[in-house]
């Protein structure tokens, strides 16, 4: 039986007239990598900071390891690691001194060298924090969060501002953490990040969860029609009526329930007439398509 690590019921947060979080339910089980995916301003950071105990809630029930994070209990903080967008460390200490300082506050910390190695900062262990690049600072943030060997790790937009190589590095790190059995609660506005890392995704828009599920099946993604796009070269005969729609660039888009048969038919038709398509591609709807569908349909609301 899996153990519930995070449990949220009917969570609401109002800032004056603005309701940033409007009745959110969430569950995260032990060992899961959970991603809260949504555009900027959707309420992700507010939810995470309530779970971390930095913010109070207006309404609803919140449990982290069955405790209320708002109580700010030391015993709860000992089990949780936090990587926020808005935290920092002393610029004049070295990487090693910083990790040593924070691990001292935990009952069963990981060795400092091991944590620094894990985030890939071994070469910078004796460098002052102020000499680190933005990406290295972020990794130090993760190292500090890991210093106490937490069971649950909050990562608030961990790769925002990273170059592609740094992102891949960060993703590898999250996978390592998952392999260690850590529960990871991640927020991101990158679809590929949620798709690559998460066991389960919840899409949030305007303070409400609009879809939840595995990255492969969320919002019926697995049941959506595949797309076949093709473009005939100049002088080719007109394509027959398969129910395709004409796109502005001169190509055609066809949605197919059975893409294998349909692609075979379209390609066969061209080959029989002695030509090849200039463009021919078959795609499953991406998480991005689903996400844009879900978050854009919210745009019209007041």
């Amino acid at each position, binding site marked *: 039986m899996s153990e519930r690590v995070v449990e949220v019921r009917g969570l609401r947060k109002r800032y004056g007239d603005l309701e940033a979080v409007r009745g959110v339910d969430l569950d995260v089980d032990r060992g899961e990598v959970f991603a809260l995916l949504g555009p900027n301003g959707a309420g992700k950071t507010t939810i995470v900071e309530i779970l*971390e*105990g*930095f913010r109070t809630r207006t309404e609803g029930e919140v449990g982290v390891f069955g405790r209320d994070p708002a109580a700010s209990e*030391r*015993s709860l*903080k*000992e089990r*949780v690691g*936090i990587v*926020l967008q*808005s*935290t*920092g*460390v*002393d*610029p*004049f*200490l070295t990487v090693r*001194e910083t990790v*040593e*300082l*924070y691990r*001292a*506050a*935990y009952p069963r910390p990981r060795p400092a060298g091991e944590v620094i190695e894990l985030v890939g900062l071994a070469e910078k262990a004796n460098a*002052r924090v102020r000499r680190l690049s933005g990406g290295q600072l972020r990794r130090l943030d993760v190292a*500090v969060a890991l210093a*106490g060997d937490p069971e649950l790790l909050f990562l608030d937009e961990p790769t925002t501002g990273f170059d592609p190589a740094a992102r891949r590095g960060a993703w590898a790190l999250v996978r390592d953490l998952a392999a260690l059995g850590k529960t990871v609660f991640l927020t991101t506005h990158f679809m590929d990040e949620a798709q690559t890392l998460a066991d389960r995704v919840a899409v949030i828009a305007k303070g409400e969860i609009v879809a939840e599920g595995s990255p492969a099946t969320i919002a019926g993604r697995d049941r959506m029609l595949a797309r076949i796009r093709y473009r005939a070269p100049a002088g080719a005969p007109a394509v027959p009526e398969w129910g395709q729609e004409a796109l502005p660039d001169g190509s055609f888009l066809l949605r197919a329930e059975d893409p294998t048969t349909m692609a075979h038919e379209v390609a066969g038709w061209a080959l029989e007439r002695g030509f090849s398509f200039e463009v021919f591609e078959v795609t499953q709807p991406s998480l991005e398509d689903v996400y844009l569908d879900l978050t854009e349909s919210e745009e019209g609301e007041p």
Partner: protein
Amino acid sequence: MSAGALLAAQLRATNRSFWRNPAAATFTFAFPLVFLVVFTTLLGQGETVIGGTSFDNSTYYVAAMATFGVITACETNLAMGVVVARDAGVLKRVRGTPMPPWLYLSARVTHAMLIGFLLVAITVAFGVIAYEAQVPTGIDLVRFVASLLVGAGCFAALGLAVSGIVPNAEAAPAIVNGIILPLLFVSGVFVPIGDDAPSWVNTVADIFPVRHFFDTMRDSFLGTGSFAWSDVGVMALWLAIGIVVAMRTFRWESRR
């Protein structure tokens, strides 16, 4: 790790960080000594009469700059350090860990007070060597140490209180200096206040703790015989006010 060991670790880290920030460390230590030389050179030829006894101005300024050093270290530096750490997200980071918040702040306060004591020691040593200032003995030494302890605590508490009022690091120097510099002047720390000064100057100086601290430091250091424990009482009152205000206004995150 026990609370004591954790406090020591945090104190060591605060101290390392302080000395590795050349601007902060240099100015904290340079100002009182440079001012001591400047004031003594410009105004040190004459004598100051306190309670019917006259004292060399140079000795007067050793006590004055020791006072100034404690106020710089405990109020100005502590307030600025806390605001900068808050803007950088360090305070928020600390609050997300099991480190007790009071322990983190205790380390910062203790460090500020220790720097203040070190400044007093250096200023006095410099005064003894360069200006043949007399070091207090006996009851005056007891008074001097008591005044120093209560005064340092008082200005550290006020430093924490001020940090809660300052919105961000950019505004910190203007607000912190804007509060403390006028008080240093009306309290006679830089230039002795003569008998012909307007009465409001003395009234303002009576209300705030700077003059009371300076009086106790000066009277015990010079042995004027006019040391008053009531001045220490006023500082203790301000210490309490500082703690209450700090508890009400202290913020872990910057507001922009």
